[in-house]
Every structure is written in structure tokens, then in C-alpha cells.
């Protein structure tokens, strides 16, 4: 590739890496979120479940 191949592959490699990471990050977050929320619900079925959410400080890490 005319000696510049390294650079091209480096860029695209970084691109693929960043895109993969940005894809899997929310996917894994979703899994752990569902697992955690299910656990909490098992431990403490909330009596206050309603359609009005509350904001709690430091309840679940983002």
C-alpha cells in the first residue's frame, strides 16, 4: 500500500476499536442494569411503585 499502509490500518483499527467499545458499553450496561434492578426488586418489592419516579442520590451508579 505504498508504505502508508501502516497508517491506514492504524486508523481503521482504532476506528473499529472505538466503534466496538461504544457499541458494547451500553449493551453491557443494560445487562448489568437489568440484573441489578431485578435483584433489588427481589430483595425489596417496593410498596411505592407508581408512575411517578423519584430521583435518589447515589442509589445506582450511572
Amino acid at each position, binding site marked *: *500500500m*505504498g*508504505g*502508508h*499502509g501502516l*497508517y*491506514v490500518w*492504524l*486508523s*481503521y483499527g*482504532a*476506528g473499529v476499536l*472505538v*466503534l466496538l*467499545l*461504544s*457499541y458494547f*458499553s*451500553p*449493551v453491557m*450496561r*443494560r445487562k448489568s*442494569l*437489568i*440484573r441489578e*434492578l*431485578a435483584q433489588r*426488586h427481589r430483595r425489596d418489592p*417496593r410498596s*411505592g*411503585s*407508581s*408512575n411517578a*419516579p*423519584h*430521583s435518589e*442520590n*447515589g442509589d*445506582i451508579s*450511572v
Partner: protein
Amino acid sequence: MNWTFFHKLGSPKWFYDIAEKFLPWFLWFGIVLLVTGSVWGLAFAPPDYQQGESFRIIYLHVPTAILAQSCYMMMAVAAVVGLVWRMKITDMFIAAAAPIGAAFTFLALFTGAVWGKPTWGTWWVWDARLTAMLLLLFLYFGVMALRSALEDQDLAARASAILVLVGVVNIPIIKYSVEWWNTLHQPATFTLTEKPAMPPEMWLPLLVMVIGVYCFFSALLLMRVRNEILMRERRTKWVQALIAEEMKS
């Protein structure tokens, strides 16, 4: 004007359902376009007369740079809507978009640096566009840092909205001042008024990549907003039902 859409937009559940519907489309379109554009750009587009093969980095560099800026603009719109109409969903947008915007800005900078080495002989140069991009990265980090420092979600939402807007006012100022300060980067490939200086064989794959990157970004955004909704609405019946459903499978 039909305000129903606007009101529906304020309901997280409605948005969650819409996101579920559109996500696969954005994701697959995005992936297909990105793969097509990359292969086209890497293998089939002609190399540049002066730059040779390293020119192909343009197919990654330009779309990510365009997206990095559009993402911030979108956040700014969300910030205005959020401050004026007080819709929760806008804050979820900002929270979800900031890390994605930062990632794309970083990628634009990285690919730009890697492209710069063979073409300009140096990894980094304090040229107008690079510097402005770097500052954009700082603005993204600022929003992320502020959100993570403020514990109260309400305050974090409104404070980050203000910060995004202050940043947006600064973007043209930053661009202008940095441009005045130094210019080595070539002028824009696409402008709204002129035809691109490249032949179609070269800019068609670029267009494909740009659209692909927008689709993929939308998919990423929807994924993150979905997570935000799940977390913030965790006490509602519909979320709890959804989680029960998910845990069964």
C-alpha cells in the same frame, strides 16, 4: 401545529417503545453502510495523486469529525428544549450523547493525527481545525465531569444544560479565533454551496460513510437513552414488568 407528538416525547415510556422499534433499523443500516463505505474507500476508491494510500483515512476521519460537531449541536438543542419545556428526556439525551460525542471526537483527532504523520510529517500540529477539535473534546469532558460531580440528578440536568449552552455560544468564537491563529488544514471537503473538489469516485464512499456514521450514532444514542430510561423510571410498573420479562429469558 400538532402538539401531541411533543407531549408524547415527554413520556419516557413512549420514547422507550419508539427506541425499541427504530434501534434495529439504525443499527443495521449503520453497520451495513459503514462496512460498505470502508471497503469501498479502502479497496476500490482511487488513491490520491499527492497523498497516496494514506488519503483513505479520510473515509474515517471526516465522518467522525462531522459527527463530533453535530452531536454537540444536538446536545445544545436538547439543552434549550430542556430548559424551556422542562422535559426529562432531553437530559437523558445529553447524558447519553456526551460520552459518544467524546469518543467520536477522540477518534477524529486520532485518525487526523495518524493521517498527518505521512502527509505533513508530524503527528500533531497546532492548526486551526485540530485545535478546535481538541477544545471540543474538552467541552465534552467538561459536561461529563460536571454531571458526575453533581449528585442531585435535577441539578445535574439543569447545570449541564447551561454548560452545554455556554459551550455552544463559544464554539463559533473558538473556531474563529483558532482559525485566525493558524491555518494548515485544508478547507472543507463538502460545503453547502460549492461542488466538492474531489471526483465522485472519491467522495461517494465518503458520503456513504457519513450517513453510516450518523445511523450508527443514532443507534448508540438510542441504546444509551434506553438505559437511562430504565434507570430513572425503575420504580414504575412498566419498567418492573419489563425487567421481570427480561429475567425470564
